[in-house]
């Protein structure tokens, strides 16, 4: 396996999504290729940093109007569900 072939598989290797034979080939290549080792290290770190990433901003507290809009939708859905259930019971 050369650097280019390995390059295409690196994320799958990091995520343990490759078959053991492919992993062994990659590991054999890595034993003798410092640039690929460095590349893999930085790709692994990139994925880790993305996992820890959180947006710089948080949502503002829900405005009363927006909360009421959601509550109304919830209540309407529950009423509709109750009348469907009652409707199907009365057919029995």
């Amino acid at each position, binding site marked *: 396996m050369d650097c280019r072939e390995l390059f295409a598989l690196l994320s799958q290797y990091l995520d343990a999504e490759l078959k053991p034979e492919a992993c062994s080939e990659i590991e054999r290549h890595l034993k003798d290729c410092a640039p690929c080792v*460095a590349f893999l290290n930085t790709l*692994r*770190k990139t994925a880790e940093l993305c996992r820890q990433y959180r947006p710089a*901003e948080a*949502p503002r507290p829900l405005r009363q109007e927006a909360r009421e809009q959601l509550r109304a939708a919830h209540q309407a859905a529950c009423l509709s569900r109750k009348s469907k259930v009652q409707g199907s019971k009365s057919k029995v």
Partner: protein
Amino acid sequence: MEQGLVQLVSDLQAGERGAFDRFVELYRPKIFAFSYGMCGHREDAEDVAQETLLQAFRRLDTLRAPEALNTWLLRIARNACLLKHRKSKFAPEHEMSLQELMPGKDGEGLPDVPDWSRLPDEELLNAEMGEQIRQAIAKLAPKYRMVLLLRDVQQLSTAEVAAIVGITEEAVKTQLHRARLAVREKLTRYLKPRIAGAPVSP
């Protein structure tokens, strides 16, 4: 955790008032975090979160597997983000090839790669790096950004991401890899001046 979700959905469908508050408190920040990553603006992300929650309440009966609540919600959020995107001016999506993301020349191995992964945590986990990551993610074309946000930031499985986005698992893996490579490249350019003297891989 699953049992808690099943109970929450059951309580929601039964109209329990406490369930409404719990659901909004738990899921509004999650949906906002995903939407903020996609839209890049707080107001847009709040709009998407509101629209997602509205749709979720209206379609609660269509949720077949309560354990899949998270995935179901993110699918609704994804559609809401796409609608928002369509309304804004956007450059056409650029398809990234592995060729352009791989350092070095065709037919050759990788050139020397600066290994910034060994920089101390104080350098990699500070606010400046957070901003660099945010900018790198924001620069990705929407389809790559979405997969990266769902797979790495939201930490969903390949199968879950495929179900949310409506693509094959192979496509998720391909797009994720390209997204990670693009972010890695931007972080490398930013960190290169800081790694003179940093350990080189043996």
